[in-house]
Each structure stands twice: as C-alpha cells, then as structure tokens.
C-alpha cells in the first residue's frame, strides 16, 4: 500500500511543474489576460496537432526535418569521432592545430549560412551543411579531450603487459574516451536541432521550422505553437535515443554514476 502511494506521489511530483505550466498557459488567453491572437491555449494547440495528423502533413514535415538533421548529425558524428581520435592520439599535431579549431568553433553556424548558400545553393545540401557545422565541433572537441585525458596509469598498465600501440588504441583509449565522446554526441544532437530550425526558416518549403514560421505568417497561431511543441518532442526523442545508445556502450559506468550520486 505504502509503495503505491509512494509511486503516485512520485508521479505527481515529477509532473506537477508541467501540469501547472499547462494550466497557466490555458488560463492566460481564456481569461483575456493575453490576446488569443498571440497566445493560443494548449487545448487549441492539441486540436491543431490532430488536424496535422489527420491531413498527413505532420509526417511530411517531420520526415523532411528528420532527414536533414540526421544526415547532418550522422556525418558530424562519424567525422568528429574519427578526426577527434586521430588528433587526441597525435598530441603534437593537436597542439599545432588547436588554435585554429578553437577559432572555427567560435564561428556560428548561422553566420556561415550565406557562405554555404553561396557554395552549395539553397537546396538540401546547404541545410545539412549548417547542421553538420553546428554538431561537428562539440563532438570533435569532446573526443579530443576524452582521448587526451585517458588515465596514464591504464596505458602504462597495458604497456607493462606487452600491449602493442594498436591494441592500446583499440582496447584502452577508445573505451576510456567513450564517456567523453558521448557527451560530445549529446551536445551535438542538441545543437543539431537548433541549427535545423534556423536552416528551415530560410528558403525552405517543408520541415517543422518552415511550418512554424509559415503558420505565423498566415496567422494560424495554434498551428505555430503546434510546430513548436512538435519540435520540442523531436529534440526530446533524439536526446532519448542518443542516451539509450550511450548507456548501451558505457554500461560499465552505470553503477559508478549511481555511486557518485549517492
């Protein structure tokens, strides 16, 4: 019995903030405190989402958003990890190239958008490119630092057993750097969604980013909020999948993290 009430309490406690937020959001336009022309109540937003689903438009927009973000993100993950591992391993070269990387990292993906359009046109390629640029840097830099900060004792331990350099790289460096690499991937995932919206708001005819801006321009305010909510869910879903992959690869850390938290 006590267990049940405990679970109930936990559920309430974990969702209370969202419930209260939704209530306030519903009441503000309904009571006339904020004009409905600016803020649609959540009930109307849900109706708009249902409409989107029934017309099939939802799938069109989500699919093109997913395609852009995933293509950019996957290229960023593979190239970021490979380059990061190489740079982390060859420390001298990394020290040489690091100032340049730090400079590039500071260049906003949005600032580069005109450049991408210039080189790649206004099509899908430049959209993927902006997403790639945003997601690439955190992945690269976290991988480099993950490799650089592998405990020297572990490397010495493997060396003392007669391990070759390729063995150390595969069996010590990569698993030891994995937590850092995944931190980079999660950050890259978050940046990728941000860049996606910006890319879709400029010169696009589909995708959630386009849908949000377009709904605002044609005064379909509930639809605008529907797009924003869907985008938030897209980000949550992406983060959830990345977290799942991470826990699959760093299973050994589970108890460790719990211990540290306790």
């Amino acid at each position, binding site marked *: 019995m006590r267990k049940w009430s405990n679970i109930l309490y936990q559920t309430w406690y974990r969702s209370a903030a969202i419930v209260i937020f939704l209530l306030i959001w519903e009441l503000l336009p309904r009571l006339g405190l904020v004009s409905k022309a600016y803020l649609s109540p959540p009930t109307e937003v849900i109706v708009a989402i249902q409409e989107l689903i029934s017309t099939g438009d939802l799938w069109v927009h989500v699919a093109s958003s997913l395609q852009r973000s995933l293509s950019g993100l996957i290229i960023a993950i593979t190239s970021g990890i490979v380059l990061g591992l190489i740079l982390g391993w060859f420390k001298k070269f990394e020290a040489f190239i690091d100032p340049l990387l730090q400079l590039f990292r500071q260049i906003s993906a949005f600032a580069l958008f005109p450049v991408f359009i210039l080189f790649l046109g206004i099509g899908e390629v430049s959209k993927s490119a902006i997403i790639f640029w945003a997601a690439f840097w955190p992945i690269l830099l976290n991988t480099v630092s993950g490799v650089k900060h592998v405990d020297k*004792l572990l490397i*010495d*331990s493997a060396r*003392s*057993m*007669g391990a070759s350099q390729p063995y150390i790289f595969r069996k010590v460096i990569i*698993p*030891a750097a994995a937590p850092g690499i995944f931190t980079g991937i999660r950050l890259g995932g978050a940046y990728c969604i941000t860049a996606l919206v910006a890319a879709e708001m400029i010169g696009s005819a589909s995708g959630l980013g386009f849908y949000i801006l377009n709904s605002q321009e044609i005064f379909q305010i509930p639809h605008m909020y529907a797009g924003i909510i869907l985008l938030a869910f897209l980000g949550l879903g992406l983060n959830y999948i990345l977290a799942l992959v991470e826990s699959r690869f*760093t299973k050994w850390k589970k*108890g460790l993290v719990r211990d540290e938290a306790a």
Partner: protein
Amino acid sequence: MENLLDSRCIILVEKRSGAKVTVKIQAMNVKKAFPVQNEYGKKDQIIVLDDFQLQVQEGEFLSILGPSGCGKSTFLSILAGLTSKTSGELIVDGQPVNGVNKKHSVVFQGYALFPWLTVVENVETGLEIRGVLKKERREIALEYINLVGLYTFANRYPHELSGGMKQRVAIARSLAYNPDVLLMDEPFGALDAQTREILQTELLRIWESSKKTIIFITHSLDEAIYLSDRVAIMTARPGRVKKIIDIPLERPRQFEIRNSEEFVQLRQEAWEVLKDEVLQAQGVNPPQEGVPAKRVEQKGKIANEKVV
C-alpha cells in the same frame, strides 16, 4: 638420530644449491635524470637515481625500501621498460633491458584495472595480448581469480569491489600470463592495515607456491621484513642502494613472526640505516654530535611512526 641427521643434511644441500641460484636482474650504475626548469627559468635537471647498483637472484623476494621520492618507483618503472634510463646498465637474464619485457608483470599501487571490463575480462587482458584463444584464456583467468579467492566476483566490474579486492584482481591479472618476474610498486600502500596484512600473507602463499622473482617496493619496514629474503634500503634522492639486509627468518612465515625478537632486531637494524635518509628526505638535518639529543630523538620517533 640418524634420520634426523639425514634430513638435516638434505636441508643443508638444498640451502647450498639455493645459494648458487642464478642472477636474474643486475643493475649497474643506473642513473635517471629528468629535465626541468629551475626558478630562474633555465634548464636544469633533477637526478632521481644515481650510481644505483642491485643484483636480484632468481626466485628471490626482494624489497626495496626508501623514503618518499627516493626514486624507488622510478627504478621499477625503468625495470618494467616503461621509463628509459639516462645511463648505466640494466641486465635481465643476461640481456640488456630494451623496452617492455613480456616476461615481467607490474602491479601498481592504483590497481590500474580497466573499469569497463569485468574482473575476468581484466585478468584475461595479458593473455589476450599474447594471442591466447578466448576459451582457453577464460579458463586460465578463472583459475587465477580462484587463486586470489574472488571466484564469485568474476563477472563484477571493478567499481563494485573494495580496494583490497581490486588489488587481488590486479595480482591475479599479473600472474595470469605466467611471468618470471613480478614488479610490485607499493601494491598495498592504499589499503587499510587489516586488509594489508591479509594480502601480505596471501602474497607469500602465492609466491611460495610459484617461486617467481618478486621485486617489491614499499616504504613500510614491517612489510619489507615480513615478506622478503633481502631488503635493499635506498638513500634519499638521488637514490642509490645504501645497504642490503638479509632476512634469515624461516619460511613459511606466520604473521606472528612479527612479534619475535629476531624480527624486532632486524627492524631496528633496518631503521638505523633508513633513519637518516628519511630525515634528509623530509628536510630535517641529521642529528649533530654534541647537540643535546633529546629533541632530535623525538623527531626521529615521529619520522619512525610515519614510515611504519
């Protein structure tokens, strides 16, 4: 009476043949200097080891004892092939040391287990490096895990184990690929006193059944005397071997041997050699003659307690 005499003779012969054992490791004039920058920003060097001489016999348990920072770990690291020496000669099995020797294994103070591998996978590492097939190496690994009494923990991860258990895993890992020489760098330094004593006794048991050559770094007098055939005492930095003390205590040794008069005498003898070095390493001047001894004596006692 005759029987007794006979058996005595055998012991004598054994001892004599034991005395003839081959030299396993020989260090001659080993020097190690690290380049550093001094306070004026100019290039300087710290000499960690200088004129280091040591001979280790096959099957011997030799401890190296010295004040902190005397270079004992550096010597072990050079011997393991992990660090290069500046000059001098280091010969193992008649061959000069050149990189990591696959017949050596090292046990580190910090355990150095791979946190992403289970106990059994950790112990398998050395065998995997040597190309032993999966099934066989698992069998061997489990055998050694059993030897250190951790059979039921074979599938746990290191962070689920206590410090003493981790060090047992590290010992099992170092033994699994059957090295000739075990290099132990203050392996029990991070453990509490009780765990430490249990592991010392277990290490002796394992050594007595395997008869590997063990070089054991420690800064504990009791540990060195209890475990070793000989104890090499080092000077403060730059480190060299100041004196080697034979430990003729009979084997197998029980833990209670520490209370014997012989043990206490050996301990006193070793402390006499070590004392000045510890004081010097801590920046305290050795006692001057003619100065009232009381205060200095006290300092010595404090240092003594710290060392032990």
